[in-house]
């Protein structure tokens, strides 16, 4: 992260390399899908790869890497907090305990 005014990117060659990397991750997702894993394992794999892809996109494509640290620390913890609350704390989340995915 920079502490400067804003976003000076590394240039298009770097972004093309990132784009190729993202396409490779998509390819891995499809390969993992056709290994016919149990639903729970497949979900974990696909979510992990999706978060990796999203992280790369936010960091480089959306230029968050080149913004001040204050912006990153204002945005990402807030999002993580809300998503965590929604998935783990709100009452509906507890229903998952008795649902099909965990009983497989």
């Amino acid at each position, binding site marked *: 992260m920079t502490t*400067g*005014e*804003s*976003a000076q*990117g590394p*240039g*298009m060659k770097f*972004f*093309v390399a990132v*784009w190729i990397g*993202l*396409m490779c991750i*998509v390819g891995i*997702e*499809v390969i993992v*899908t*056709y290994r016919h894993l149990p*639903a729970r394992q*497949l*979900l974990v794999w*696909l*979510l992990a*790869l*999706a978060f990796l*892809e*999203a992280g790369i*996109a*936010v960091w480089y*494509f*959306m*230029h968050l890497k080149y*913004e*001040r640290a*204050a*912006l990153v620390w*204002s*945005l990402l913890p*807030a*999002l993580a907090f*809300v*998503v965590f609350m*929604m*998935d783990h704390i709100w009452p*509906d989340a507890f*229903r*998952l305990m008795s*649902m*099909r*995915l*965990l009983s497989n």
Partner: protein
Amino acid sequence: MEVSAGHGHAGLMEESPYGIPSGKLAMWCFVLSDAVTFSAVLFAYGYLRVGSPDWSTPFVFVPSILNGLVMTFVLLTSGLTMLAAVEAAKAGRTAAGTRWLWATCVLGALFAAMHLMEWRHMIEEGWRLFQNPLGGAVQFGAAFFSVTGLHLLHVVGGVVALAIMALGLRSGKYNRIDVEITGIYWHFVDLVWMFVFPLIYLMNAK
């Protein structure tokens, strides 16, 4: 930095802790709230999926997954052309920036067209919001059409915004900051698809 102080008092204003224009900060706040919206929709889909004992997995590799892969390629490539537009606008190359914005716009429109063709194909097969031609959980249609529909709405909105931006950049109405702000939105649309494709398509592959 553009600060909307007005009346010649800009020098008296405290500097933004983020060092970015207010419009860009507003777009980040919108992206944050929209990310929560999509999270909620995807969580709802997750609850429906794990709560239904007869959930359908209708997507075969050809045409559904292959079509999804091509759509992913088109959308990711539009992210690259958007970056080229931002870089060109930053360098003051307005004509190049405008061309890259139109390229992004065309790719976005192509993605939307492919998506609508897929919807048409599924509707012809008998899928509806609350109708499953395979006889499984009827919630599949509701989940599929609502999640992909919300994303498609964002794509169409983005295509319109990109066209307005391309016209405005050429005429001098908009500047490089405006292109950057549009870029943040467009990359977010791209980012959401990175979750929609694996969770909606690949998790339901036959």
